[in-house]
């Protein structure tokens, strides 16, 4: 029982890191980016290539995955995404679905369609006992790392100059521009950081979520659930939503395996009906 909860928390933490970038682009910048999972997949494959082919240790592969996807995100933002910020949602949906299709086919071509694995260091394998409960070490590592990241993000958003610039730009881009905030630069940095976090999440999650070319399609709905259920006005909303989703999904698949993902989808639809603004949203 407790093992399930801890597995669920680790799973939810990874989902949070994966989805937090989306909560900014989708919620704050109001851009429907269904291709967010493609960045996550890119990070995952980065880690796979780095650990298995180049022999880079896993702990170094993680920041590498972050950097590579962040740079990719920054480039794509500048070249492709920026012209679409003010376009209708339909355009954004079409564009990002196109990106997903391209990413899926490219990875399939480059790496093959089989599932990929990262090489974990010995120290992270196996289980340890905490208060008598056997816990996977890797899961523990994820929980600690993601917890720190979440706290750091919250701090950046609420206490730094950049955080307040971002919040201002999101609240009203025109006024923010008038105050001398370089909104484009803020958005670009945020997009890059969000993509990088997705890449990091993909690298971390390769072990527990499974990594193959259909990753962006398979997990698209999960990211969307985290964002829509968590609301977009804070970091803590998506964080709690991701944890809930992780625990519910792991527990559901463990106790009622024949229902599969049914529970999650049904829960999401119900939640969206009751609280269209998200579960933890502030009233605006």
């Amino acid at each position, binding site marked *: 029982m407790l093992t399930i909860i801890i597995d669920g928390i680790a799973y939810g933490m990874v989902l949070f890191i994966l989805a937090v970038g989306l909560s900014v682009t989708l919620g704050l910048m109001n851009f429907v980016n269904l291709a967010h999972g493609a960045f996550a997949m890119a990070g995952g494959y980065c880690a796979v290539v780095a650990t298995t082919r180049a022999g880079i240790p896993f702990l170094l592969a993680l920041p590498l995955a972050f950097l590579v996807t962040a740079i990719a995100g920054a480039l794509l933002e500048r070249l492709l995404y920026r012209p679409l910020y003010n376009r209708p*949602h339909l355009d954004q949906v079409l564009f990002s*679905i*196109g990106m997903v299709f391209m990413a899926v*086919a490219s990875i399939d071509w480059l790496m093959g369609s089989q599932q990929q694995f990262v090489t974990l260091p010995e120290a992270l394998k196996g289980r340890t006992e905490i208060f008598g409960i056997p816990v996977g070490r890797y899961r523990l590592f994820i929980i600690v790392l993601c917890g720190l990241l979440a706290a750091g993000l919250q701090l950046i958003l609420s206490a730094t100059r950049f955080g307040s610039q971002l919040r201002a730009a999101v609240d009203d881009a025109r006024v923010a521009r008038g105050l001398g905030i370089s909104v484009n630069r803020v958005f670009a940095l945020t997009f890059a950081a969000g993509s990088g976090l997705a890449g990091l999440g993909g690298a971390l999650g390769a072990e527990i979520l499974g990594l193959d070319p259909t990753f962006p399609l398979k997990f698209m709905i999960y990211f*969307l659930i985290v964002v829509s259920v968590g609301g977009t006005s804070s970091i803590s909303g998506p964080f709690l939503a991701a944890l809930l989703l992780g625990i519910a999904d792991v527990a559901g698949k463990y106790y009622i395996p024949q229902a599969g993902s049914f529970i999650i989808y049904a829960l999401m639809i119900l939640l969206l009906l009751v609280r269209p603004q998200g579960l933890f949203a502030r009233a605006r």
Partner: protein
Amino acid sequence: MHSAQDSTAIRPVMRGRTALELAFWLLAFAAILLFPRKLIILNEIAILALFALSLDLILGYAGVLSLGHAAFLGLGAYTAGLFAKHMNGDPLTGLAVSAAVTGLAGFLSSFLVLRGTDLTRLMVTLGLALLLGEAANKASWLTGGADGLQGITMQPLLGQFAFDLAGRTAYLYSLVTLLILFLIARVIVASPFGMALRAIRDNPLRARAIGVPVSHRLVTVYTIAAVYAGIAGALLAQTTQFVSLDVLELHRSADVLLVLVIGGTGYLYGGIIGALAFKLLQDAIASATPQYWQFWIGLLLVILVLTGRERIRAALTGISRRLAFGRATAGSAP
């Protein structure tokens, strides 16, 4: 004075348009004789066109963005398949049953879908399609699961025309259904109801202010669109005599969006032209690179959006106007 001049200028164009439309449908029927080896793909095109027409009703005319329209296609397909397998193999009865079931599903789900903003709609439609897909996958005792629904045998159409391997009956059946539903859609779109839909699409707030019952209209059109998609699914199941989980997958919903975007949203021929272009393109790409055709579809989507999808439609209407006008002046020359 002015108006008289205008109407004389417009009338030949209008007449030219009708002639063009007539020519189009005649060509579609003549394809049975012209391309007897291509009937299977032509049948697929007709079905895809109907599916796109269905999406156009809600997206192009009412402005409802759906990422899960395949839910109704799949529901219609499974209903028709199961009905033929277990109850009655008559195609038209199956079609009617599918239409009724998807209509009911569309009506019920419309209340879920039509709340909230674009984003919520996107999520709910996507979620419903995933839910159905998962249900069909898990209920393998009923649907055959990942193996697909097999063992469907159809009786001859109207008791006369058996479904042949070349797909003659299948294509004719789908094409006639498409034509009938197309004509109905034209009536719907031109009616005050259709006008109200466009008002809602352009500005829901204003539409409500001038007295359009927004949610009623949207529920109605969503139900109609569901019926159309269900019939498309039923045609697919009946003419291929097989249903697989593929009909409920996300790429179906994405493909039909692409079809509509190629052809142009908000006018009824958009879906048909788009389906034709999409299928031919897909056929060409798939025979060149069978495994990676999705990449090119994706690239096409990205390019379409970045260059502006209005341009295709502008080009298409330009061509059709020129064709129609040329024909009209040629026709009225003597």
